[in-house]
């Protein structure tokens, strides 16, 4: 059956009851004869930051798309319950080039009736939060890659999502910009407290950002590590290095000492 299977088992966040943002049991996804996700179980608590590591083709993006409800024409089964309000940040900033920065942030944003701000006001606040106050009238092509990705973050967070799904959001950025984005993302998550699932192939990024790191290999979750390090996490910290080595090994890489 090559249809969207979510409808069969989908539940809303209210069914989740116990503040889980993601509750996945036995999720399987197939593409033609190839099994991409194989009986995946994954729970993410409200406000928890989970990083998902894996090599290319391990099924990371398939899992993320399943959670985002974007996996069309993929067959499979399993139980999948996710929070009601989900935002997605893609690897490319995916800004509509014909809308100005503010128009991109407020795209499809609904303002609640009652004593609220207009969606423009909320968009402006959100832009200020990512450090782009005053750039609301710019066209996306006038921004740098890092700035575009910050607009994408503002677009996601202005919706106050219960679950933020990020598919290698910093993958296309240079190392320095990426470090700045890590600081920004940590600050934003502390302020808005969404549950986060961050797909990445960068082990350091996963350890710096996440409360928990899971490794996906050939469609199965093979490793799960809680990262319990104090706030400014540094790669020089021996505990950091231990986690890193463990994760690298689970990805099939023996760390050679430089």
């Amino acid at each position: 059956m090559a249809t969207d299977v979510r409808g069969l088992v989908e539940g809303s966040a209210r069914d989740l009851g116990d503040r889980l943002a993601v509750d996945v049991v036995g999720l399987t996804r197939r593409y033609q004869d190839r099994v991409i996700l194989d009986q995946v179980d994954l729970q993410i608590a409200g406000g928890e930051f989970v990083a998902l590591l894996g090599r290319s083709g391990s099924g990371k993006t398939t899992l993320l798309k399943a959670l985002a409800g974007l996996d069309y024409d993929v067959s499979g089964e399993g139980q999948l319950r996710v929070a009601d309000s989900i935002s997605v940040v893609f690897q490319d900033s995916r800004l509509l080039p014909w809308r100005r920065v503010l128009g991109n942030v407020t795209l499809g944003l609904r303002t609640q009736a009652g004593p609220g701000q207009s969606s423009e006001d909320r968009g402006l606040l959100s832009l200020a939060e990512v450090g782009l106050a005053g750039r609301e009238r710019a066209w996306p092509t006038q921004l740098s890659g890092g700035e575009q990705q910050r607009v994408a973050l503002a677009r996601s967070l202005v919706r106050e999502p219960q679950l933020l799904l990020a598919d290698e959001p910093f993958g296309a950025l240079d190392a320095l910009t990426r470090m700045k984005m890590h600081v920004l993302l940590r600050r934003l998550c502390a302020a808005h407290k969404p549950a986060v699932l961050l797909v990445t192939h960068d082990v350091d990024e996963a350890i710096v950002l996440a409360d928990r790191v899971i490794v996906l290999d050939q469609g199965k979750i093979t490793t799960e590590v809680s990262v319990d390090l104090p706030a400014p996490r540094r790669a020089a910290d021996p505990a950091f290095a231990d986690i890193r080595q463990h994760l690298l090994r689970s990805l099939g890489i023996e760390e050679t000492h430089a």
Partner: protein
Amino acid sequence: MTAQLETRIDVDHLVRRTRSVGMNRAQDRRRAVVDPDNRRRPGRLGLRRRIPYAGAVGPLALLAVWVVGSALHWIDLRSLSAPWTVVATAGELISDGRLQENLATSSWRALTGLALGIVLGVVLALISGLSRLGEALLDGPIQLKRAIPSLALLPLLILWLGIGEPMKVTTITLGVFVPIYLHTHNGLRSIDSRYVELAETVGLRRSEFVRHVVLPGALPGFLMGLRFAVTGAWLALVVVEQINSTSGIGYMMELARTYGQTDIIIVGLVLYGTLGYSSDLLVRLVQRKALSWRQTFAD
């Protein structure tokens, strides 16, 4: 000893040279900040700076050839009247009101046909672009229509609609809607599927999706189609006005042909050319304004 000295001098020279190069760079940079023209210097492979009034250069050159050719009698005045004769004739036509009257009639036909054609083209492109069934039903017939010249449809249209205004406007509409449809449809279908994915994640309704993603995304294609359409409208006008017509620029030219008045024919031609060209310029202006978000090779 001498060799050592020479080496030292060489080194000094080198150092001085390096320093001066460094200084020049700094000065260049400073100049770049001050010089406003330097703001958008083209790259090595980009196009050079815009030529001012580039659109007028070619036509003016053509005009110059005509003037010089007539003055030196390279051009036989019986086959092609001289520019000054044409200007004088145009003056007469204007003073007795014939030109304005015919121009008004022609413009009304062209604009009505254009307006109807734009609406028809856009609506068909949306139906065919947003629904598989719509595409299956509409795209084939429109491609067929595209292969049939307007002139070949004329006998049928005259039978159906007579020789009055409805036939003329319909012919223009049928010529205009095809490029609008083709380019809008193409622009719409080439919208990046990643934007569709985005529209779903931010929860756009179908109407919002059309308004915020589909229409702006198809706008570059639509405007390209519009350029073909405006010139096409004036071209179709020629066809309908030279058949069974009693008014309009085409009629004026057809009448002049029977009396061998090349000057009037040329007034008509110049008029057609000017109208077509200036409407194309107008659309390009709109294009530049409406698509200011794009950074393209041509900018």
